[in-house]
């Protein structure tokens, strides 16, 4: 998936001279996760460059570049580090079009790796997606496989509004079954690992049906798409898994159609539970699909604690938590 993300930026740097890629360690070195490897050499130092360790500055400078007419793609090295830049994101990037009535826009895509399962501790594992979806004026995108990652990132860079592009770092190098004690499976065995070389885009705001089924609807994104799929298939449950891909704007039609069909809805995310994006999804499903529901909406999430280091796998919403929830929702 990291190569697909790299390719998306490569394609956009080639296609649009306004595109610039910047962030801590992204230049010569190519990024701590190698997402920008080779891009500086190919496109030059003024298009792909390192920045000071200053997230407020990275996002603030990108807002100014956007106002000039560039299309900045800043990287925040870990989503856990985005907080010093939040004022620039919330009060500036997200509000610029509205407050200036289209005088100025902010066509910025903030890429940032997020989520746990890599023994990153509390400062390298967080999932702050619901902080992003709570901002008015920012789109929030989370890919779950290499093909989508490239198409969605290209669409995000081409979008004329600010996009937060959250990359599930646990699946950079292969999908994750949820069994941390099993060998890592490479992307090459996955059906979405074939990534075309050139330009293509996947429109923002469209969910994907990962697995069609009748027994229940599972709403997931990022790493949890793969974990959920593994457990469902192990248990032999005929679940319909919807990969949301874009959290905002949300593909509400896909959600409604699926839940109205199956009558049951389970939401799976790694982020903390309280005020997590699952709460928003549960509320929407309740408001729109209540008379089709045969069981209460079930949420499977991380716990409301900081992300622990040594007890990571007790925190992670893995096979046991998902299986328990599946059993419960299907019994009701």
């Amino acid at each position, binding site marked *: 998936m990291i190569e697909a993300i790299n390719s998306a930026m490569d394609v956009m740097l080639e296609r649009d001279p306004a595109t610039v890629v910047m962030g801590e360690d992204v230049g010569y070195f190519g990024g701590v996760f190698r997402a920008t490897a080779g891009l500086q050499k190919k496109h030059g130092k003024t298009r792909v460059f390192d*920045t*000071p360790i200053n997230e*407020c*500055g990275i996002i*603030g400078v*990108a807002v*100014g570049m956007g106002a000039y007419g560039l299309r900045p793609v800043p990287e925040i090295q870990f989503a856990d580090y985005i907080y010093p830049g939040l004022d620039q994101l919330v009060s500036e990037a997200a509000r610029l079009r509205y407050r200036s009535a289209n005088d*100025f826009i902010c066509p910025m895509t903030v890429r940032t790796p997020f989520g746990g399962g890599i023994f990153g501790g509390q400062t390298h594992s967080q999932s702050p997606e619901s902080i992003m979806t709570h901002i008015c004026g920012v789109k929030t995108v989370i890919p779950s496989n290499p093909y989508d990652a490239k198409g969605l990132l290209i669409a995000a860079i081409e979008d004329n*509004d600010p996009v937060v592009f959250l990359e599930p770092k646990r699946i950079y190098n292969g999908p994750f079954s949820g069994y941390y004690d099993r060998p890592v499976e490479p992307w090459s065995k996955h059906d979405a690992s074939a990534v075309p070389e050139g330009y293509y885009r996947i429109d923002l705001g469209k969910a994907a049906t990962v697995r069609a089924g009748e027994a229940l609807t599972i709403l997931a994104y990022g790493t949890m798409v793969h974990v959920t799929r593994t457990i469902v298939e192990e248990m032999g449950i005929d679940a319909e898994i919807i990969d949301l891909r874009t959290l905002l704007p949300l593909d509400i039609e896909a959600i409604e159609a699926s839940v109205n069909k199956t009558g049951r809805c389970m939401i799976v995310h790694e982020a903390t539970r309280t005020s997590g994006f699952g709460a928003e999804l549960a509320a929407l499903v309740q408001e729109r699909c209540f008379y089709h529901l045969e069981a209460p909406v079930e949420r499977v999430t991380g716990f409301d604690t900081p992300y622990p280091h040594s007890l990571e796998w007790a925190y992670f919403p893995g096979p046991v938590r998902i299986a328990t929830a599946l059993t419960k929702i299907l019994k009701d």
Partner: protein
Amino acid sequence: MPESDRRPARNLPPLSLHIPEPRYRPGDTPDFGDIEIPAVEATPRPGEATRPDAMRELCYGLVRVLDFDGQAKGPWDPKLPADRLRTMLRYMMLTRAFDDRMFRAQRQGKTSFYMKCTGEEATSIASTMAIDRADMCFPSYRQQGILIAREYPLIQMMNQIYSNRGDHLLGRQLPIMYSAPEHGFFSVSGNLATQYPQAVGWAMASASKGDSRIATVWCGEGSSAEGDFHSALTFATVYNAPVIFNVVNNQWAISSFSGFAGGERTTFAARAVGYGIAGLRVDGNDALAVYAATQWAADRARTNNGPTLIEHFTYRAEGHSTSDDPSAYRAAQEASAWPFGDPIVRLKQHLIALGEWDEARHDALTRELDELVKTTQKQSEKLGILGHGMHQPFETMFEDVFEEMPWHLKEQCAQMLAEQEAKFGPDWKPE
């Protein structure tokens, strides 16, 4: 554990915490006699390409051109033609007339809020006149002088202040938070100093594209304490960005004096030293000094010699805003005791000393500008004042959150329109 056991037995007095306190409070008689005012000729003018570390003393001195008798002197004298000086005076007087009128409009209940820049007119007007028309300004909230100096239509400013039918920002922004891209004026944010890194980003973009335009940005001494200020200076020095940083040190941030931004320890221009950026400290009530310093910084930026931080040493002669009453926290006579006088009076005296102006012309211009503002105000008020129904169409509340309106905003917009119908009756029609 008892307190006494935790303290090491040293023969030292206990630590004490310093809480800054301004010298004068209401009822006190201010005396600014101890402010060092170097002679006009005393401050050298280095070449525009001088290394920052070779001109550090300018961060602690004061760039001056006009003495207190209205004479322009010394190495910084920009030697502007009289017509240019009269234009500058006109812009400053127009800004003051506009401020007075709009302040009164707020007091008359025609809008919610206003902010004057009385006493600080030179810091935006002379500064704007010293850069190119194509250069980009990133203002804070007290730089209406930029728009006046770039001859933005007054009625547009008023329409914004009234949030009326003619407000091109559709009534979305608090009064005075203008936006004017065609006039090189970035959208004003209410969050302080956020424009600082944005100006650097704009300047970096200009440099990376091989453009010739530079960026200039303003904040107050109070908001120089924000992280954004320091982020901006870091990025500017790292990339040698063509940007001019203005810190308008007007001594007061609402009720907090400059000591709460570190002003008791050093100058604000000296913030530049640690970043390796050129710094200039300027008499902000001397329009020619502001012009000269800005011109120096603009030439420096435009020749790839990097950013400059300019501290404009001035005084906020009025309240922070219409929501503020400075008599509650500072001595009433501070403004009149301020040793640097009034920027308009000083420029006027200079023109008179040159034989290029007189009291009669000044009075006539005052009347002309008052009349202009008054006439424009009447035109603007025909398009509505705040809270009197002539606002923008309701649906505009939901537009421009995104380029295209997503489903959830469409739903919420329909709900809001239904609420209006419930409120105003079945014959109500959306505008």
